[in-house]
């Protein structure tokens, strides 16, 4: 349905997006995962015909949208990363305007507004000025404004940044329902891997303007199938233990966590005995040990050597 071909965008001589190929089939829910500055928003801007690619193309049903954006503009709904609403107007007035620019008028518009307000659960507060809303409520109206014209494809750019857990799960649940019950095609961008894990069938992992891994969730995790993660909580931070663990040939990766250290090791390696030995040697108290199968976060860490969030 939608496809990008070697999409590239250069800002001031630096490539923010560097040759992205991705595709979405009808009814799919696709995740775009990557840390801040990876180039996710820029990619979305190019897909939504807001920014002209330096090179490459975006195809909708096999037709270039760079040459003629009119088609994609009608079928695309974009929830921007920033809250793009008129703060001094009421939610209702905002929705009237964003409906009108898609050509909706009169009764049809009223009906759609009632629908999307119901969807985001703010029907009872529509006559209030947006400024007075909480961050989470603003995010929900931000999303509602992109849904008025019944888009076939919904693109969401980090729609849950900085909001309360209640609004967050409301948004996630809404997106999941739209995708599964209404068959809406969704491109969900985030740097929260647990959101992407929950919502998306297929995931692209982005870093430094490139896609570093892609596939169904399980496929991606299989990258790490030969590995497991061991969380070790210590009674206090102890850098010397960390560095000696990092020296250990058998351990793939050792990183510091809030409570202690985290190790990625080959599956089945009998590593714990030597870890306890090291702890004994450095006179550190181990308070908890937890062995886990990998998450997308671990995949990212594995591929880049960095965490998604700093």
């Amino acid at each position, binding site marked *: 349905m939608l496809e990008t071909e070697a999409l590239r965008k250069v800002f001031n001589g630096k490539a923010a997006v560097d040759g992205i190929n991705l595709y979405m089939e009808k009814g799919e829910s696709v995740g775009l995962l990557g840390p801040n500055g990876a180039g996710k928003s820029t990619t979305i*801007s190019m897909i*939504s*015909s*807001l920014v002209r690619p330096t090179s490459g193309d975006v195809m909708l049903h096999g037709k270039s949208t760079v040459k003629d954006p*009119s088609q994609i*503009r*009608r079928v*695309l709904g*974009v929830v*921007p990363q*920033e*809250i*793009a*609403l*008129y*703060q*001094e*107007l009421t939610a209702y*007035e905002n929705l009237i*305007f*964003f409906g*009108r*620019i*898609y*050509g909706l008028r009169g009764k049809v518009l009223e009906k759609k507004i009632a629908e999307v307000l119901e969807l985001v659960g703010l029907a009872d507060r529509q006559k209030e*000025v947006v400024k007075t809303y909480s961050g989470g409520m603003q995010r929900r109206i931000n999303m509602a*404004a992109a849904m008025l014209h019944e888009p076939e494809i919904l693109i969401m750019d980090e729609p849950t940044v900085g909001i309360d857990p209640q609004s967050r799960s409301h948004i996630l649940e809404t997106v999941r329902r739209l995708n599964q019950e209404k068959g809406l095609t969704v491109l969900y961008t985030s740097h929260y891997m647990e959101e992407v894990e929950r919502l998306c069938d297929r995931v692209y992992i982005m870093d430094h303007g490139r896609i570093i891994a892609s596939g169904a969730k399980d496929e991606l995790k299989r990258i790490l199938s030969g590995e497991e993660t061991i969380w070790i909580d210590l009674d206090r931070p102890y850098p010397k233990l960390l560095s000696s663990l990092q020296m250990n040939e058998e351990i793939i990766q050792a990183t510091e966590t809030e409570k202690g250290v985290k190790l990625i090791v080959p599956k089945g390696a009998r590593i714990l005995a030597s870890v306890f030995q090291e702890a004994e040697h450095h006179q550190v108290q181990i308070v908890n040990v937890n062995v886990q199968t990998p998450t997308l976060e671990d995949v990212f860490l594995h591929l880049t050597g960095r965490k998604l969030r700093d």
Partner: protein
Amino acid sequence: MKSVFLLQWRRLYRAPVMLVFLVLTIVFVSLLAGANSENKLTVYTFFDSALTDEGSDAWLEKLNEAELFEFREAQEEEARQAVFAGEINFAVQLMNDDYRLLVAADDPNRFLLENYVNQVFAEELRLREAEQQSSGGEIRTSVEKYMADPPLQAVTTSLEGEGSFKQEGQLQVLFGMSLFFSIYTVLFSLMNIAEEKRGGTWDRMIISPLRKWQVYLGHMTFCFIVGFAQIVLIFLFFHYVFGFDLGERYGTMAVILGCYTFAVVALGLLLMGLVKTPQQLQAVIPIVASAIAMLGGAFWPIEVVTNEIMLAVSKGMPIFYGIDALKGAALYDRGLSELLHPISMMMLFGVACMGIGINLMERR
């Protein structure tokens, strides 16, 4: 385009900050021109001890036929004090057949005063002389009768037509101030564009089926109408409430205002192309507005400027042509064909600014 246009009205309704400039204009014009318009200059008048009560009353009555001055009876001491303290600029001492002026500062009106008092005295003394010689009392009445329908009349009109000095002063203030404050209204309204670009609603419009020119046009039409309406409202207010005489060329004045407002809207687009953030724009607007107004002669008539460079610079300001053309229409009854020059200069300015401005904005 219409939805963008209508949206701006809704936003204005929710946050009517622009009314500030409407009110400010009215306040300024009232202070500078309106309040003064009916006031006469007060002249404290005291009498020489040789003068009888009837004599002094007669002089006072005669003098108070003046249009420009009000002669008010006062004690000598009081009058001298007031002039000395600068509370009033003139006092006059009347004697039986002569007068003395007491002038505080180098007030240009003192010549008018002197002329006037001199004329009244000369006339009266000549009449008295004639009365004495003809021994009969009828000469005064017959002269009065005669003067009511004189065989020869000298009427003074200026080359430029019938616009009086006072009217010109009033209109200078009215035109200058309303065109000046409308710059604020228009530029601050245009800031909506800059804010939308920063806030992301602009992007929302661009990725919708709306065309970019529709978005621009919607904003510009709004700014144009707000600026235009503000000036028209102020003109109407001063015409109907304070009785300012704006002549009869209403259509011509509307065209002039339209061209002027267009030029200001275009100037706003240019500014937005030049600065990066709404904050910068906010800082630049007052500077630009007052610079234009000062250089273009909104605060004082450009005729008082003698510096060649300043005069040359004023020719680059749309407000200069706006005031010039408005005065032409209101004071000297000029029509569109006679005002083609200032009108086309404003249009030229507008087209140039808009072209450069939109180009600069779109390049980013």
